[in-house]
């Protein structure tokens, strides 16, 4: 009689297909876990902006200005110090809603700190005049204290956006009278359709929140299209 060849008894074992399914499900769980540990970051700054809108129960706005990560849109004349890290890791958005502008600053920092992002709503009915000012949030501009002026010497400038100037504007200037009596003038740069950005130096200890300003818009021939005086809005 043939000797009974002993084979090792096989315990219950999944087939390779089911093992693959199991591995992929485990991967999915771990991906979700690591996504949560990292604070649920999204792939694109624009998606983060939209998420911040939803988290602040803001209706979806129309994005009129996007300062992309890695681009250095703020350019203050005479600025010698350039904070590379800030410019490489931050994104800014300005969105227009019904009667308000929304400004968002995203600074995806380290793991579990993805909430290092700020969004602020600027209602237009609190500003006089036809043209509205939207001070930009920056890491060194503490808008929460009601001031739109940077106090950090490492950061070269602050941004103020005017979402709409008259059609045909080729040159725009914003002059702000600071608390110490100094008048700061900056020429704006056209960033989008009718969207102008004014980058101010931050080498003053005084603030500009609530300070008077004069906004001048001229056409290509130098003719004045609009002049508006008002007060730089404070955050609410």
């Amino acid at each position: 009689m043939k000797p009974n060849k002993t084979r090792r008894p096989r315990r219950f074992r999944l087939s390779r297909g089911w093992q693959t399914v199991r591995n992929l499900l485990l991967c999915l769980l771990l991906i979700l876990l690591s996504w949560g540990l990292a604070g649920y970051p999204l792939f694109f700054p624009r998606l983060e902006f939209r998420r911040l809108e939803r988290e602040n129960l803001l209706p979806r706005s129309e994005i009129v200005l996007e300062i992309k990560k890695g681009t250095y849109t703020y350019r203050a004349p005479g600025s010698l110090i350039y904070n590379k890290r800030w410019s490489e890791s931050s994104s800014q958005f300005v969105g227009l809603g019904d009667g308000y502008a929304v400004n968002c600053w995203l600074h995806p920092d380290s793991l579990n700190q993805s909430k290092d992002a700020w969004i602020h709503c600027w209602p237009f009915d609190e500003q006089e005049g036809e043209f509205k000012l939207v001070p930009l949030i920056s890491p060194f501009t503490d808008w929460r204290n009601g001031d739109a002026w940077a106090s950090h010497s490492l950061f070269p400038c602050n941004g103020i956006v005017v979402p709409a100037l008259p059609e045909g504007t080729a040159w725009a200037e914003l002059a702000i009278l600071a608390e110490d009596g100094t008048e700061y003038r900056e020429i704006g740069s056209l960033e989008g359709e009718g969207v102008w950005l004014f980058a101010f130096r931050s080498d003053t200890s005084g603030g500009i929140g609530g300070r008077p300003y004069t906004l001048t818009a001229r056409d290509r021939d130098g003719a004045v299209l609009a002049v508006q005086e008002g007060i730089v809005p404070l955050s609410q």
Partner: protein
Amino acid sequence: MELHENAKQWLETATKGIRFGPDRREVEAELREHIEDKTADMARIFRLEGEEAETEALKRMGDPAEIGRELARLHKPWLGYLWNASLTLLGIMILVCAFCFFYIWLYQESNGPSAPGPARMDAYAAMAPVRLEPEQVELGGYTFRIMAGYTDHEQITFVVLRVSSPRFWEPVDLAGLLERLEVVLDDGTRVSIPRAFLASTGSDGISPLHTWGADVVWGSSRQPNPEADEVDIKGRWWARGLFYQDINVVLRWIPIAPGERITLEIDYPMGKVRLSAVLEEAEI
């Protein structure tokens, strides 16, 4: 049992069409066992010996080229590659998660814990029930609800506001909520959170807005103690689950009369959240 050269040749021909290595080795081992069994049978039945028995066994096994084609058709390589890839991905994800946990542990070690002690949570559990109206408000996919409250009618009053949402990856923005929050009392007194508090940094170096919850402490014209308008964030505590955040809204030195209603108002651009509670007598 060591196979002879022609058996090895047979095996190679039969399995060379299987492109996925682990499959090929497994099938080869299986076929080898069959050859060994059959060789033993040939030796036992026909009293053949050694290579002769093996040759007879191979003849009965069939044409190796034909078997090879059939095996190659059955064993598709992509399933094997996918299996390999899933194992690699699983390994990578385990490493990534381990790194995340290590990083967070390191961060907490260097920054100190931002969570409250268990004593505060016990106090939370011991809070008196409150009368609520309405029970909850839904806005923008979030549900707002007052969960608990406490008052000693003199020094301290607080209510716990819970904001929940099934979108766990989009918890309500605490900074935005605190900015818009106002506490309204029966006599029309409105108390909001000072900007200085929102911008402040706690003694542990962490901004209250960067933690998972915050005490909101402020006074008003009703406060009898002139020194009481200091912002105290030491008593901060938090509670956060996957689908909710609890925010402890604390009023200090604002006397609340028995039966007085406290209303939380959050004025969002999308709409206004309004929640009321009447705090009962309670002791912690």
